[in-house]
C-alpha cells in the first residue's frame, strides 16, 4: 500500500519528455518531486505562469510570483507570465499535455466529483472544471477509499460532478486503474496489495484480466 508520496512517485512515471503539465493541489503537487531528471517537463499554473521552479529560498519570496495554490514559487529559464484568459487558452486549447488532480469520487464512466459536498462549506471549483472538460489526458491521484472506508471508485458519482466522462487513469494507494468504456480496468497493484483487496475497495465495475503486475516504482 502506498502513501501519498508513493502515489506521486507512481504518477511521475506517467510524465513524459516534452510534456506541459498542470498539477492540482494536494498529492499532485508532490509529483514534481519525482519526475525523472533526464527528461524535460514544464509545469503550468493556471494563475498565469509556465516554467515553474522550486519554492524560493527564504528571503527571496516575491508576492508577485505565486502558483495557483497561492504559494510563493520561482521560475526556471524559459519561463513566461501571462493573463488568466491566455492561461485557460493553454488548458482549453489542449496545449497542456497532462493534468493531474485529486478527487473525492471517480465513476466507472470517467465522471469526476471533487469540488462540492452538499451541506458543507463549498470553496469552489477554481480551475478544475476547465481542466477536466478540456484535457485529453487526465490522471486522478487519490486514496482508494475515504476516511470512513467507503470506496471512491464508484458505479456513479454521488456528489455533484466536476466533469463528465473525462478521467482516463486513476492512481490510488492500492492500484493503477484505467478508465475504459467497459469500466475500471486494473493495470497494476501497489506493492503487497492483492487483487482481492482492490476488488473489495472498488465499488464500480472492476475488470481484472490475466495477471496483474505489481507497480514498478
Amino acid at each position, binding site marked *: 500500500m502506498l502513501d501519498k508520496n508513493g502515489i506521486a512517485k507512481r504518477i511521475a512515471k506517467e510524465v513524459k519528455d516534452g510534456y506541459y503539465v498542470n498539477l492540482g493541489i494536494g498529492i499532485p503537487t508532490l509529483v514534481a518531486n519525482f519526475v525523472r531528471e533526464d527528461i524535460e517537463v514544464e509545469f503550468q499554473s493556471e494563475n498565469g505562469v509556465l516554467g515553474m521552479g522550486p519554492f524560493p529560498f527564504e528571503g527571496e519570496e516575491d508576492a508577485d510570483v505565486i502558483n495557483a495554490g497561492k504559494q510563493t514559487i520561482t521560475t526556471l529559464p524559459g519561463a513566461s507570465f501571462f493573463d488568466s484568459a491566455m492561461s485557460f487558452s493553454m488548458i482549453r486549447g489542449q496545449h497542456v499535455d497532462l493534468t493531474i488532480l485529486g478527487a473525492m469520487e471517480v465513476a466507472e464512466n470517467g465522471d469526476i466529483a471533487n469540488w462540492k459536498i452538499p451541506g458543507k462549506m463549498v470553496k469552489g*471549483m477554481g480551475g478544475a*472544471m476547465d481542466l477536466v472538460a478540456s484535457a485529453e489526458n487526465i490522471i486522478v491521484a487519490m486514496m482508494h477509499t475515504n476516511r470512513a472506508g467507503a470506496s471512491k471508485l464508484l458505479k456513479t458519482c454521488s456528489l455533484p460532478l466536476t466533469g463528465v466522462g473525462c478521467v482516463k487513469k486513476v492512481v490510488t494507494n492500492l492500484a493503477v486503474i484505467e478508465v475504459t468504456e467497459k469500466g475500471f480496468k486494473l493495470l497494476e497493484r501497489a506493492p503487497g496489495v492483492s487483487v482481492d483487496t482492490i476488488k473489495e475497495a472498488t465499488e464500480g465495475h472492476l475488470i481484472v484480466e490475466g495477471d496483474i503486475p505489481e507497480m514498478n516504482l
Partner: protein
Amino acid sequence: MINKKVAGVTEALQGVKDNMTFMFGGFGLSGIPENAIAELVKLNVKGLTCVSNNAGVDDFGLGLLLQQKQIKKMISSYVGENDEFERQMLSGELEVELIPQGTLAERARAAQAGFPAFYTPAGYGTEVAEGKETREFNGKMYVLEHAFDADFGFIKAWKGDAAGNLIFKGTARNFNPNMCGAAKITVAEVEELVPVGELDPNEIHIPGIFVQRIFQGAHYEKRIEQRTVRQRS
C-alpha cells in the same frame, strides 16, 4: 495623448454607488487593487455585486468589504480561506455564484472585446450548466456563457502612464488585463506612474484605450498568502 490620470483614489472612485456591480483583478491576494478596496471600505457603499476570482482573507483584500457587510453577492471561482465569508454564506446573508475560473476570465474578456456570449466546455454536465444552453460542436459538448456587465472594474498594474497604458508583473497579472475595458469604467492603480513615452510601446500589456482613470497607489502591502520556502542546502 488622452490623459487618464486622476489625483488619487478618491477622484478615481467618483461615481461608485450602492448596489453597483464591480470587477476586481487579482488572484488570491496577488495583484489586487489594494487602494481601491481601501477606499470602498471608507466609502462604505453597500449591496455590491463583486466579480473576483477569490474573496480575499478575513482581514485583507475583499475580506475587508465582507467585514463591513458591503457585499450582497460574490461571483468567484474559489472562496476558501475566509471565515467571515463562510459565516455570511452559510447564514444566507451573502449570495455566492461559483463559476469555473476559465469561464470567469473569458466572461471578462468577452465584455472587453464586445462578444456577447461564447461556448466553453467547462462545466458541461455539472450543476454549473443547469439552466444554460448546451450545444455540440465536433462531437463535444459546450455550455453557452455570457459576457459580464459591470459598472466599475478595479485593476492593479505594476507600471502605468497617464495615457492609461499598463504593464503587469509576474503572476500579479492574472485577471487584471482581461478585466480592463470590461466594465463601464475601468479604474487602474499602479505601483509606479511613469512619464508618458517611457514605456516601450512593444511592451505594453494593456493599451490605455481600455482604461478610464489611472493613479499611483499611495501604498502597497502586497501580502503573501502562502509563504512557502525551501531550505538552503
